[in-house]
C-alpha cells in the first residue's frame, strides 16, 4: 500500500509472564489487553493487576471496534541499518475501552497524512524478530 514501510528491521520485545498472551494473540491478529473479572476495566500494558480496582483476577480480552489517533510522530531518521523511513507511529485509543492506548505503525496512507483524531482499525504486521507488531490501518476518514 501507498507509503507503507517494511517494519521488520528493529528490536524485538523481551516476552514476560505478563506480556506473553499479548504477543501470542498478536501472532493470530488479535489485540488483547488485561480484562478485569471483578470490575470489567481494561489494563494495558498487561500488569497482572487491574489498574482500576487492583484485582489480580485479570485475563486477556480482545479489543475490537474503532480506534482513534491520540498522537503520532513521523520518523525520518535511520536509527538502524536497513530501517525503512519515513514511517508514522501512532498512539491509538479506543472509545469502547477506556484507559487502553496502544502504540503501533500506521498503514494505508502516506505517513504525512496522519492526524490526531484519525479513525483507524487495529491490526498487526510483521515486526522485528518474527513478532507481529501492532499496525493500524487508516482509511475510514478523519474524524
Amino acid at each position, binding site marked *: 500500500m501507498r507509503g507503507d514501510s517494511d517494519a521488520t528491521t528493529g528490536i524485538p520485545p523481551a516476552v514476560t509472564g505478563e506480556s506473553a498472551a499479548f504477543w501470542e494473540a498478536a501472532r493470530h491478529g488479535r489485540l488483547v489487553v488485561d480484562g478485569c473479572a471483578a470490575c470489567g476495566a481494561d489494563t494495558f*500494558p498487561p500488569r497482572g493487576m487491574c489498574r482500576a480496582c487492583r484485582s489480580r483476577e485479570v485475563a486477556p480480552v480482545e479489543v475490537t471496534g474503532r480506534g482513534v489517533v491520540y498522537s*503520532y510522530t513521523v520518523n525520518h*531518521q535511520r536509527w538502524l541499518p536497513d530501517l525503512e523511513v519515513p514511517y508514522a507511529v501512532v498512539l491509538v485509543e479506543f472509545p469502547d475501552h477506556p484507559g487502553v492506548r496502544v502504540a503501533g505503525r500506521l498503514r494505508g496512507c502516506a505517513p504525512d497524512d496522519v492526524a490526531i483524531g484519525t479513525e483507524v482499525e487495529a491490526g498487526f504486521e510483521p515486526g522485528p524478530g518474527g513478532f507481529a507488531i501492532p499496525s493500524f490501518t487508516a482509511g475510514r476518514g478523519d474524524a
Partner: protein
Amino acid sequence: MTGTELLEQRAVISGVGQSAIGRQVDRSGFQLTLDAILAAVADAGLTVDDIDGLAMFPGGGKANLPGYANGDLYEVQDALRVTTTWRQGQVEGMSLPFYGAAQAVATGQARHAVVWRTVKEGSAARHAGGRPAYGSIHPEAEGPLAWLLPVGMLSPVTQVAPFATRYMHEYGLTREQLAWIPVTQRAHAALNPDAVYRTPLTVDDYVAARMISWPLCLYDCDVPVDGATAVVVSAAETAADLRAPVRIEAMAGVIDGRPSWDQWEDMGRVGHATGAALWARTDLRPADVDAAQLYDGFSIEAVWWLEAMGFCGTGEAGGFVEGGKRIALDGELPLNTWGGQLSGGRLHAGFGHTAEAVRQLRGEAGDRQVPGAEVVAITNVGGIEAGAALLTRWSR
C-alpha cells in the same frame, strides 16, 4: 513555610566541577569522571579526604544508549581511596542530581557527598556503526521499552515527539515559535566557552533543518557529547569551611501520571504536579526567579517546564518564547544560560543545569552572567521522571 525547616535547607551545594566537554574527548569515561570530581571538590574548598558520600547516575540503572553509563562507583571509591558512610546508585527516579545527597547530609549520614554523571555518547554515536538506536546495545527491548522499540520508536526523540504533536494540536504552538528555544539558547552558548555549538542559529536555519521525528527537527534535539559533571553536596552546618556554598531553597519530584513515554495520559501537560509541590515548599514565587535552567533534552521539554513551573500559563509557552526577548540573558526569565543541552551538550539528568545554576548564583558565569542572580530554578526531565528545585544565593 515559615517556622518549618525543610530538610533540603539543611544541605547546600558546595562545589561543581566538569571535565573537558566536547563532541569527542579523547579520554576514557573514567578519567573524565575523576577530572570532574577533583574539580568539584576543589571548587567546594574541600579535599578528597573530606568526602564521605558517593553517588552517581545512573548507578545500577540500565544503560540503554551506547556511551550512557560511565564512572563506576566502586572504581571511583577505589581510585579516590575514601571511606564512605553513605553511597547510592542514583537510578532514574532520583529526580535531581543532588536530591538523594541532600537527604543524606541533612540527616547526618554524610557530611560531604559527591555525585557525578559521565557521558561518552558523543564518541559512542560516532563509533556505533550506524546503530545509535535506543536500546540497541541490548538484543531485546525490556520494561516499558518493550512496547516502544518493536514498533519503531527507536530513539528518545521518537518517544517524545508525540508529546510535541499533541501539545501543538491542543495549544496551537508552531514550529516557528518553538524555534526560539534553540535559537535563543544558541546565543547563550556563544558566550559559554565550554559549549559545544556556539555559532549563531536563526529561525530560518531551524525551519530548514532536517526533520528527525516530526514535529521535532535536528535543532530540537540535544547534542550527544563526551563529558563529566560532578556536584558536591554538603551539610549546611559546614558552611564556614566552604568556599562558596549555594542554598537549596526547595526541591520536589512528583510522578502523577503513567511513567512511560507512550502511556502518559495528558501529553499537553507534563511536570505540573512537580511544579506545584515545589512552590508549596517556599514563599518565593515564579516572578522571583532570576534565571531558569529547564531540562531540554528536547525543546518541547522546556515548553512543559515553562508552564509547569508557572512562568507562563498552560498553553502560553509558544507566545512566551516567540521572539526570544523574554528568555534572553537580559529578559524577564533568562533560559538555559549555558546553552542548555541543545547547544551546551547533553550532560544529562540535570547535571549541566545544576552546574550552571551554581555558577550564576555565585556570579561566576563569565560573559553569560545574569547580573545579581539570587534565585535560579532547575528542572529535570518531566513525565516519567520529574524533579524541580530552587537554588538561592548564600548569605552568611
